[in-house]
């Protein structure tokens, strides 16, 4: 921002300028509102597709958690599956032994447990290069996988956690085979988490994270506590990944060792890359594209769909993510331009702005 040029004038004006700028950035655009209206409309539009839509919502939430640390804090991680899996098993065990019966409470608790693990391991990713971070995050999730395998009397080992009986939601809505209630539940949780994450990202805290990503040394020089910001965002991200994992366990009433696998973390990276990092909707759009791509390819060649996923990755990188993002940016710009021209600004934006700076 142009803080330097503004300094010459009196000091109150720039502060007001900055806060007005931040507020205008944080407004919900008509594009976003349309996105969520459509997302909730799918509940009635595609009743036959609720199972895959439910998986998509969980994947989108999971990708959102990775976007927080990758797109906003610049931490490459191959270990998001650790939080996903831990919370998944936690939610499963809590329901199996009837410790916490209400799914929503169990969900929040699982998120807290995952966040605690995130906090504990966040100090490990603060040091070292990208490769060290990759290895440490991957190592943590593989270690958890080994532990789950070791204590198979509790976790069920390679057979997975069975006999999980999830109580009806709020005591009324039972998770059915066709995923109707499950989908509404997952989509609502996704939306709530999205709103929270969006609030975090557009706050001054979120801006400081972007500064850290851009240049940690300079960020430290202007007084941002780099270490603690990274610890905080890693913890939040772990919590959200945990909620995604708990959702999967609750809606499928099952949890198996593959929640910790490397493939899960790698697929997650792919999802985020398809959608693009650092603008929150990347994970959501990526999850939709990925799930339907996977569904389509798996129908064509059930056994070898991994090959095509790999091909997509290689081609994506060779074409260049930046070029892709420029295309998307052009399309978005054009659509947003049309939207602004069609709808008077005061009506569309006024009511939707969140409270506070």
């Amino acid at each position: 921002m142009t803080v330097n040029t503004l300094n010459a004038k009196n000091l109150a004006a720039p502060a007001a300028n900055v806060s007005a700028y931040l507020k205008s950035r944080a407004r919900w655009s008509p594009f976003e509102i349309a996105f969520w209206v459509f997302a909730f409309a799918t509940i009635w539009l595609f009743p036959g597709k609720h199972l895959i839509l439910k998986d998509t919502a969980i994947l989108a939430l999971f990708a959102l958690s990775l976007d927080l640390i990758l797109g906003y804090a610049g931490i490459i991680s191959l270990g998001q599956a650790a939080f996903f899996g831990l919370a998944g098993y936690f939610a499963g065990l809590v329901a199996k032994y009837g410790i916490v019966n209400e799914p929503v409470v169990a969900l929040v608790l699982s998120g807290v447990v995952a966040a605690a693990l995130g906090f504990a391991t966040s100090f490990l990713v603060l040091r070292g290069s990208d490769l060290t971070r990759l290895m440490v995050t991957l190592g943590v999730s593989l270690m958890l996988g080994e532990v789950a395998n070791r204590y198979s009397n509790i976790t069920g080992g390679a057979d997975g956690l069975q006999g999980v009986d999830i109580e009806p939601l709020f005591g009324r809505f039972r998770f059915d085979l066709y995923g109707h209630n499950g989908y509404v539940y997952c989509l609502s949780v996704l939306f709530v988490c999205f709103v929270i994450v969006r609030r975090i990202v557009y706050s001054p805290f979120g801006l400081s994270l972007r500064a850290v990503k851009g240049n940690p040394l300079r960020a430290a020089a202007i007084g941002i506590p780099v270490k603690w910001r990274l610890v905080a965002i890693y913890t939040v991200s772990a919590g959200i990944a945990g909620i995604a994992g708990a959702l999967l366990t609750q809606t499928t009433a099952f949890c198996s060792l593959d929640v910790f696998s490397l493939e899960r973390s790698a697929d997650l990276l792919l999802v985020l890359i398809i959608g693009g990092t650092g603008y929150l909707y990347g994970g959501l759009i990526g999850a939709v594209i990925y799930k339907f791509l996977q569904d389509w390819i798996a129908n064509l060649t059930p056994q070898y769909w991994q090959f095509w996923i790999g091909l997509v990755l290689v081609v994506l990188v060779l074409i260049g993510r930046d070029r892709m993002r420029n295309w998307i940016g052009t399309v978005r710009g054009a659509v947003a331009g049309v939207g602004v021209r069609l709808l008077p600004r005061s009506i569309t934006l006024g009511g939707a702005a969140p409270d506070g700076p």
Partner: protein
Amino acid sequence: MLTILFDGVAYGMLLFVLACGLSVTLGLMNFINLAHGAFAMAGGYCTVILVNRIGIPFALGLPIAFLVTALIGGLFERTLYVHVYARDHLDQVLFTIGLVFMSVAAVDYTMGSSQQFVQIPEALQGQFNVFGVGMGKYRLLIIVVCGLLTVSLQLILAKTRFGSRLRAAVDDQRVARGLGINVGAVFAVTFAFGSGLAGLGGALGAEILGLDPTFPLKYMIYFLIVVTVGGTSSITGPFLASILLGIADVAGKYYVPKLGAFVIYAIMIAVLIWRPQGLFARATAR
């Protein structure tokens, strides 16, 4: 006890031959190549086809596996990898994971998903008994071959002109370029050679490590441990790291079989926290 040590050393030697190419690519180009295991798998399957189906002697199959994998590695380097060197680490990780997925599915498609075994000659089966220590003949062969390879690698790096160019390029790429060293060419040759070594390791190790389409995924983490723990600035670092890893893994599987790889991962994380640059790395200026 000594048998475990012996097996561990053999396993570690094998890991070193598999991973040393990776260590050079990482040190030289700062390139994270997760697909290194795919080349090892290519070497293994190449030997399976040559020895089991065509009936070429095992001793001849190994060098051919080396050459074929080196050729594939060189080809991939010139056509694909070359475009990714300048990108950030995220791109490199994505690109190479994509290659791993493709190789896994492709091998599954062509060779089937079951585990493959190389028919090793009868002269190499069985055990010696030296002072009460049982030593598998095949493992002894692995130690001898890998030991020779290590010594010759060290000699090439330390004594030859190519070796000094490579070391110069690893130490400071820009200055090396400025001195007229063709870093790209040096790198291409090294990449091909490293892939070839991985292929040879895969061929030798098919008996011990097991060979199935998920090989690159299963052993990727081991190669990366060797490289990160050993550091990338020398050849002795990864060598010591792989011997340690080999012994720790064999001993771990023998004494605490239920904990499996847990011990390995825990040690790796501890080492990386303690020395993020690697256990045997010099303090680098970069």
